């Protein structure tokens, strides 16, 4: 059987998100007819560099900005009409709202947290990246929610995809209405332009202990960044958060202190030039991405390092 693969494009603020190209590239590798599904309003030009065979474009004012209800309805209708056997969607804030809906409405098996996909086997990263699971679908009909950053973006770029437009379903009377996008407040420090980041996670235990990592950052002339729980606890501002819902950083040196390396964190820092991880758990996934690893207690190593510099 030849595959028909839907790739659900993702865009925000008029910009195509990299995950779109990553999935198109992967879909081409799986093989078959690759159709990128793009929803928007006056957004057809976003498809200019999609490397798929075809683009299925749906234009409607209600689709101008992502709306979980409107997007889900539209994509379900397209899946019914075109019957793709594989649907690739991002394991992202937008994709999460689509994947399960399509799975239930079209009775398609769903596999999330996918870090690799073939025509019938999907590998997921579970338990914060501490376990991998391969799942098999005998008839090759499934939806995979793909982790951002898992595949190459360049492989999904191209030109000359034929664009076909499709009608939106009836989108009147939606229960969810999009209001606006709000940009985050600017911070005191821009962590995306730093050469050195000392990044702190839940291993630091409490707010007072931040002194220890701040002292190291100061000594290195770098800045302090963090994992999400530190920001959720309000110990550091949102602008210091590295990862999926934070910022992507590429410093020369990234020192991860008491950070486990959950996939959502890795997404934001894996391209740093030199990653040093300090974590007492030798099985912490962060060590799979680090160039240098230390399993000693951070409360011993960090002050000692600050002294040596």
């Amino acid at each position, binding site marked *: 059987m030849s595959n028909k693969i839907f790739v659900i494009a993702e865009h925000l603020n008029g910009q195509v998100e990299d995950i779109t190209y990553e999935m198109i590239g992967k879909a081409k590798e799986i093989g078959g007819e690759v159709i990128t599904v793009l929803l928007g309003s006056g957004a057809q030009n976003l498809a200019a560099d999609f490397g798929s065979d075809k683009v299925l474009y749906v234009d409607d004012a209600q689709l101008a900005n992502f709306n979980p209800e409107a997007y889900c309805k539209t994509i379900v209708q397209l899946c019914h009409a075109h019957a793709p056997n594989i649907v690739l969607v991002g394991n992202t804030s937008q994709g999460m709202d689509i994947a*399960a809906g399509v799975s239930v409405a079209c009775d398609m098996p769903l596999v999330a947290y996918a870090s690799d996909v073939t025509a019938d086997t999907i590998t997921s990263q579970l338990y*914060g990246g501490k376990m991998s699971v391969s799942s098999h679908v005998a008839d090759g009909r499934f939806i995979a929610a793909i982790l951002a950053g898992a595949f190459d973006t360049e492989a999904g770029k191209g030109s000359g995809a034929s664009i076909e437009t499709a009608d939106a379903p009836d989108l009147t009377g939606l229960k969810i209405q999009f209001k606006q996008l709000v940009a*985050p407040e600017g911070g005191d420090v821009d962590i995306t332009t730093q050469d050195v980041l000392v990044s702190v996670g839940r291993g630091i235990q409490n707010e007072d202990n931040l002194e220890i990592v701040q002292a190291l950052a100061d000594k290195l002339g770098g800045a302090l960044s963090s994992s999400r729980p530190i920001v959720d606890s309000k110990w550091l501002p949102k602008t210091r958060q590295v990862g999926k819902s934070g910022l992507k950083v590429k410093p020369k040196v990234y020192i991860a202190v008491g950070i486990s390396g959950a996939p959502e964190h890795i997404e934001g820092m894996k391209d740093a030039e030199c990653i040093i991880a300090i974590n007492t758990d030798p099985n912490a996934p962060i060590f799979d991405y680090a160039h240098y690893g230390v399993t000693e207690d951070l409360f011993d190593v960090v002050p000692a390092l600050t002294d040596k510099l």
Partner: protein
Amino acid sequence: MNIIVPIKQVPDLVEELEVDSSGKSLDREWLKFKVNEFDDHALEEALLLKEDTGGTVTAIALDGDDIDKALFAAAAKGADRVVKITGVDGAPTNHQAAKAFANALSSLDYDLVFTGVQSVEDRDGQLGVLLAHYLNLPHISVVTGVSVSGSGVNVQKEYGGGVIAEFEAATPIVLGIQAARETPRYVPVAKVRRAMRSTEMEEMTAGDISVGAGAEIQRMFKPESSGSAEMLSGSAEEIASTLADIIKNKM
């Protein structure tokens, strides 16, 4: 607003995880469990919303490891009702769990359902979105703020880089909570014990939880370490010296 909060126990990742003899799932025998951290945020946001605007909070869970303790802890924090769903054995998929919750919710009265946005075991997708679709309700996930607005709710959903999308939504709706406004409250053990004595644990049966065939697990394994990390050993002093040299070289 009447709010339902489904909660779930998940393996504590601080423990060493091992694969069982089937090669397809975790060895649960020695595992320590804790409430999914995002469910804690969902409960916290529900309690804060109740404190702002009135209503009730019901915590509901599938029967399983240490679930009574988790539900009584929810009661101690301020949940008005705690409900345990029986009749689901073993480790259900999220499709099955969502079906069980959907069945139970059909006999409860609610305006909002708050789930944790995800858990560490969502191989077949996030529970909240699945639940919404079985209930035929709208859904928004990765929510970092909810407030009552007219007869509905104003919802903030988070994207990458901290960009927030704001939505107005009618109720009932299912929301996948990423982070509550406040750090989830802590409750001392003594208070949980008191709640155990004073709270009635309601029970419901899961009903029909048959769902379409999912993808079959072939193998669970520890990710092969890329082995690229050079592990430094020695005393803290020795490690610090080596690290200092490495860092100076890179800058």
